[in-house]
């Protein structure tokens, strides 16, 4: 019996001693983007370069703030986020390294940081997805501000935890001021139905639980690729009036200044912005590639989108702080 005890103590101490301090990898990516596409990109990259990459899945904001907390000792080499917001926050805190030329040149200037601290990889558009049996496209609101009207009560879904939704809010604060944004948010809280994520809202519209939802284009585009657009009960609706509801947002990546694998990290970003990498990303996620030479296979052409003006750079509101504060003030967070 005592031998058993000694054995188990031995086993325990060895377990604690030898348990890996973290899984071994050349590169660690904090990934806030959709897992499937990122993993496909990583696999192709490893095949090409033999560099082993490990990704830590989380929400973009959570991972970015984690990096701030971790400081110079952060295990992350690269952060890849759903929106540019967290990247701008990290750049402002001087935690990012400059990205090298070849990668930067793959992406048009308006979709990357002017100083080269982060680079956009994919774009996505805010849309309304609506159920064709419950509502006609011509009855849908022509501006997001119409949603303040009580006639839309319980007719639409929104996702307060979505980074793109928050970006929309930041853009609203920048363009129309904090007060207007606040009263819009209050009316949304009153009239809209909260869902936990874009996918859940997409499915609810498709099933006919709710007439329409404010989400990103690729949730519907992905479903349409899987099942065929004509077989779906739902469709995409763009207002086409340069309204905030058609906001285009940028998802991007950055290299951490504290990374001990600068060279490998640069290689990864170069690959992610190259035609091959961009093709993988768009094929696996139905988001718009930012490298102009890549085929998007049936997404609404990027050139036909009508985003609101002056919303690619949100200036002082681009770190998302004001939007979060507003959400807390209104009592949604």
């Amino acid at each position, binding site marked *: 019996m005592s031998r058993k005890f000694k054995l188990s103590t031995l086993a325990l101490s060895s377990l604690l001693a030898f348990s890996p*301090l973290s*899984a071994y990898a050349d590169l660690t990516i904090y990934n806030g983007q959709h897992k499937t596409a990122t993993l496909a990109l990583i696999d192709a990259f490893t095949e090409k370069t033999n560099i082993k990459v490990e990704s830590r899945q989380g929400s973009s*904001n959570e991972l*970015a703030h984690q990096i701030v907390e971790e400081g110079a000792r952060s295990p992350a080499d690269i952060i890849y986020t759903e929106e540019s917001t967290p990247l701008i926050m990290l750049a402002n805190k001087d935690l990012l390294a400059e990205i090298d030329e070849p990668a930067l040149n793959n992406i048009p200037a308006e979709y990357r940081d002017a100083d080269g601290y982060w680079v956009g990889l994919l774009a996505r558009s805010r849309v309304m997805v609506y159920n064709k049996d419950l509502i006609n496209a011509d009855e849908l609101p022509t501006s997001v501000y119409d949603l303040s009207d009580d006639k839309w009560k319980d007719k639409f879904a929104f996702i307060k935890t979505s980074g793109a939704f928050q970006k929309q809010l930041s853009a609203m604060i920048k363009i129309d001021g904090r007060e207007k944004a606040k009263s819009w948010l209050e009316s949304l809280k009153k009239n809209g139905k909260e869902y936990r994520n874009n996918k*859940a809202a997409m499915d609810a519209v498709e099933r006919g639980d709710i007439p329409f939802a404010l989400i990103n284009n690729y949730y519907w585009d992905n479903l349409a690729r899987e099942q065929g657009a004509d077989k779906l009960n739902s469709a995409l609706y763009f207002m086409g009036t340069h309204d905030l509801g058609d906001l285009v947002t940028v998802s991007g990546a950055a290299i951490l200044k504290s990374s001990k694998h600068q060279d490998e990290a640069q290689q990864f970003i170069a690959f992610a912005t190259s035609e091959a990498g961009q093709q993988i990303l768009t094929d696996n996620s139905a988001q718009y590639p930012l490298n102009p030479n890549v085929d998007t296979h049936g997404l609404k052409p990027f050139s036909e989108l009508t985003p609101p003006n002056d919303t690619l750079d949100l200036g002082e509101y681009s770190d998302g702080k004001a939007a*979060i504060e507003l959400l*807390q003030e209104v009592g949604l967070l």
Partner: protein
Amino acid sequence: MSSKAVIKQSRKPVPLGLMIPVILLVVLTSLPLLYIVLRAQEAGLSHAMSLIFRTRVYQLLLNTLQLLVTVTLISTLIGVASAWLIERTDLPKRKLFNALVTLPFAVPAFISSYSWISIFPQLEGFSGAVLVLTLCNYPLVHLPVAAALRGMDPALEETSRSLGFSRAQTFFKVLLPQLRPALLGGAILISLHMLAEFGALAFLNYETFTTAIFDQYYVAFDGASAAMLTLVLLILCVGVIGLEILLRGKHNHATQRQGSPGAQDQVILGWTKPWLLLAILLLITLAAGVPLAVIGYWLLSGSSSAFHGQEVLSALTTTLSFGFSGALLATVFALPLVFLAVRFQGRLANLAERLPYFIHSLPGLVIGLTLVFFAIRYAFFFYQTTPLLLIGYAMLFLPMAQSSIRATLMQIPPQLEEMARSLGKSAWRVFIRITLPLMAPGLGAGLALVFLQIMKELTATLLLRPTGIDTLATKVWEHTSNAEYGASAPYAALLILISGLPVYLLTMRSFTRNTA
């Protein structure tokens, strides 16, 4: 705790070796409180206050309490009714029903809600949450109440009936007071579950403090705001534990004579019998049948993705190794604490006994946030490592190891140890050579119980796991969050098979022995 003078029984000085684990325990317990204080300090007192006293917190409080009270009440009613029906009436197949009624134990709540949501997506919000969580939790009342009913002394009831009291009067005046400890114990557990539940409520789209804390962390990583919500949640947890101490009051007031099963008189059900039988069958179908059938259906149809054998296997081995090492750690930590509590009197012994229950009542999410916070600041070499995750597990599930070990140690007379000591053996040797071997069954049961709890753990695991590591629970969470029901089925099924069923068998066994 009362400030009565401690009765002087064998006031041996506590050896230093036993003090260290208790000090460690005190440190670990104070971490969540420290985390809140430090975060509040970072934010500044006025900002911290404004984060606590706002409409949102009031709304969450309402939501959380509403859910807690409703689910606890309905679960308790169902649990008492099902226990009484099965134990005290002439319904057929008593043993079979007893087993089936407690089958929901085999399905973790977040898997159960995923199964419901995947077939009835409209089932969300308050009513959906109440339905699903009640069906998950009523066995926590049914089991102890059924055991208490079996262990009761029939003489009391017979006396009451012979004095001319009706059956109903007897139930309320004689039975119910005797059931109180069992019933309360179960109800308190359910209440704490409601405070800690995350996964199920996330699927069911119902906000409580725990989901709101997660959102804060997820969206804003607003340390201060998450911490202030945590503070309110902590107060609620302490409130529930305090309530238990208040309600428990004096210990059982009935003599526990072992009435052999069958000695109690059985109620002969008349025309109600088929209806009650139907009710029990309906309960079993909803609580156990639906989740198991739905997981089975998704497993077979597996439409949302191909079967990833490699991924399933690696999640399985990770889960098993986490479970095993975490259970070992918890048991090794629990041993000296139990020893202290059983063999010594005084404040330290009380602390060793009580504190783990306080930590255990905290949601895994809070333990996760706390450990991340301290690891980043003061122990970076621990950050995102398996040992830190194991420490989290040990903290969360310490009481389970303790209660199993305690039961066996109580049965070992201290005279045995004293005799060995008088023969000149060192205390340590006596412990290793005599006490420990005698405790083996308790150690084994404790290990098993903690192991099975760890397998189901979700929120602390999400926060603390090493990069690139997944467990069965995190895989279920990941896939179901994206509505990939087929893809999460293999993980969910494995989780039920290797954690649910053993837990179920363990609980069944421990309650069906005729001891209340």
